[in-house]
């Protein structure tokens, strides 16, 4: 019997046809759609007189350009409004379900898929968004696609894909206190580079992955694309099943029992081979902070801004110099202590309830530093509602954070939430590219607790010392 990886098992189960010239035609189980990358695809269908082949496997939401302020107000930007109207009209015309701004379940596409139980192990999931890799946390093969491919999937329910190579990323050991899933994936990207997994699907394995909650696993898989991988996967286990049980779109009754039985087989066979293997010792990873303009330009918060002269090639020296110039940083400057102007808590990477809880724990009873503008943008309206039930909104508001409605918001700055030129931001999002959060804006990626601590301190701090201080304060208060 051929030993198969998790990737291979899911791939094999979906091959509809093999083109003689190379790629396979794969059946898509779930197609998620949003307002920015879909209008041209629907228009293409209309022009060709085609319909959506499986509207019941297609789910749309609005997230990228939606304002996160008061939902009762009209959308000020007429171009954004037009894009939202186009999705609503397309959803109606083609019979696709839409979580619109009035829906209590609206949110970032990669937050609501899992939240609704739409995302399930063994599926092939696509969306016109590179962070579709998030859904791989459930043992699904989930890939971001372009608009032409969106149209192709709408019309045929299939994706043409040339078989990628496989990479095992084995995360061993136990992450220390104050070290989150975000730190693990940033450290991995720093280690293999932003093109380190190009052409590959990553399977994350090892004790440090098994120990993660589903939401933490989503954070890891979410940033697979930042290492160049179109998809990242984690084999489903009891953690996965417990998360999915009882979700609105998860199977129920006998179907649930059968599904879980099938899902248990979705593991790489012992001895199955990968094209490449990398390892990371979670115990050696400190909280991470990016210092440059790509997610691979990252180091521990205890580190300093690197010196371009220390890099081996001309290309790297140029890239680092350019990044430091953009970021307004001098070589050798310690990252801890760097003053910040803005804080963004949210995104498909870190906008879930556990992220908000972890940040709130740091913020509770404290104030955002003067001169710092901080905002919390929950990943979905359900996350927002849950946080409000737990009183987290009060923790944030009382500390001086803005408490907003769900959307992609300042992760990509398509809506009014953007940085001003030169502003430095501690952000829980996924990309620190030039101008990503606003032209001239300077983004430092980090975990929710790190961003929360930065908000309070007004500068980058090592959250491990922060937590220790708080612990000390509690002891003093108790004595």
């Amino acid at each position, binding site marked *: 019997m051929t030993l198969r990886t998790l990737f291979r098992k899911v791939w094999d189960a979906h091959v*509809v046809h093999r083109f003689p010239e190379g790629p396979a035609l794969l059946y898509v189980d779930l197609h998620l759609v949003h307002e920015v*990358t879909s209008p041209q695809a629907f228009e293409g269908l209309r022009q060709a007189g085609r319909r959506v082949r499986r509207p019941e496997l297609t789910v749309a939401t609005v997230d990228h350009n939606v304002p996160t302020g008061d939902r009762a107000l009209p959308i000020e930007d007429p171009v954004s409004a037009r894009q939202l109207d186009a999705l609503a009209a397309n959803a109606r015309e083609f019979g696709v379900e839409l979580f619109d701004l009035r829906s209590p379940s609206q949110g970032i596409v990669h937050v609501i898929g899992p939240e609704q139980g739409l995302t399930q192990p063994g599926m092939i999931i696509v969306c016109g968004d590179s962070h579709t890799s998030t859904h791989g946390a459930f043992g699904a093969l989930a890939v971001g696609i372009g608009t032409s491919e969106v149209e192709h999937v709408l019309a045929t329910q299939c994706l043409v894909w040339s078989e990628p190579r496989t990479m095992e990323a084995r995360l061993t050991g136990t992450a220390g206190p104050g070290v989150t899933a975000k730190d693990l994936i940033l450290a991995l990207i720093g280690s293999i580079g932003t093109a380190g997994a190009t052409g590959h699907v990553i399977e994350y394995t090892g004790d440090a992955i098994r120990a993660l909650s589903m939401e933490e696993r989503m954070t890891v898989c979410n940033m697979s694309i930042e290492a160049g991988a*179109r998809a990242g996967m984690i084999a489903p286990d009891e953690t996965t099943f417990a998360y999915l049980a009882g979700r609105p*779109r998860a*199977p129920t009754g006998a179907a649930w029992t059968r599904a879980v039985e099938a*899902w248990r087989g979705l593991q790489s066979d012992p001895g199955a081979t990968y094209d490449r293997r990398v390892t990371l010792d979670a115990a050696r990873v400190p909280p991470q902070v990016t210092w440059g303009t790509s997610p691979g330009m990252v180091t521990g918060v205890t580190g300093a801004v690197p010196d371009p002269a220390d890099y081996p090639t001309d*290309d790297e020296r140029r890239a680092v110099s350019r990044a430091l110039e953009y970021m307004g940083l001098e070589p050798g400057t310690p990252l801890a202590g760097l003053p910040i102007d803005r804080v963004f808590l949210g995104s498909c990477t870190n906008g879930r309830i556990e992220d908000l809880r972890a940040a709130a724990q740091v913020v509770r009873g404290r104030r955002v530093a003067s001169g710092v503008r901080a905002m919390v943008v929950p990943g979905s309206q359900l996350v927002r509602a849950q946080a409000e039930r737990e009183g987290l909104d009060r923790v944030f508001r009382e500390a001086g954070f803005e408490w907003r409605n769900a959307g992609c918001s300042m992760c990509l700055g*398509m809506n009014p939430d953007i940085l001003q030129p030169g502003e430095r931001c501690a952000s829980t999002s996924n990309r620190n590219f030039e101008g990503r959060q606003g032209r001239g804006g300077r983004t430092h990626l980090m975990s929710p607790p790190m961003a929360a601590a930065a908000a309070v301190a007004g500068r980058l701090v090592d959250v491990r010392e922060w937590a220790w201080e708080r612990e000390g304060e509690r002891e003093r208060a108790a004595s």
Partner: protein
Amino acid sequence: MGVGEGGGAGAGRVVIEPFVRHTGAVAALPRADVDTDQIIPKQFLKRVERTGFGPALFYDWRFRPDGSLNPAFELNRPEAQGATILVAGANFGCGSSREHAVWALSEYGFRAILAPSFADIFYANCCQNGVLAVCLSPEEIAELLRRHAAGGGGGGGVYRLSIDLAEQRVEDGAGFAARFAIEAYRREMLLHGLDEIGRTLLVDSEIAAFECGMRNAECGIDERPSGPRERS
């Protein structure tokens, strides 16, 4: 954009301009990790059409904050005007899946992009739009950049390349020639400007068969989403 009908049942319908051979002026962007946020910044992604993105290509690099041209940016140099071939650094097109990046490059006038490597989604998006993404070795790209700087770019003249997709060959007529690899499927799509949907629908019966009875028990895909859907 080429139009017209090819074979029957929508198959082979020409919807994109075929790429067979192309000769044109080169523009150089010698930096790695050019991400799609740079190629087309987010504020320009709100259009619902496939057109209108060319003027916004590399917006934050081409234009200063006051809207004037940034003369230091590579594409604004005199010798880069009218260029149809872009030579760039590794991992070109990384980041967001936005196909708008390819639409912008294409509308600006680029028919081919040469780099040591491309991000996966961007590479696929190029193929869908008749833009040829050519992977050459880092040494070959470095040589092209040298020749561009010496013979064309730096000297104020124009450096030209010919790209032959049928022969899978790039040459400058002055001693540089390199072969490149491309998957047969993508090569054919580009050579003939094929509509991928039409091509897939040629095997519609296989899709229908998969849907009907070939639910794979292993992953239980026919046991899935079940619940009635809430309509919002």
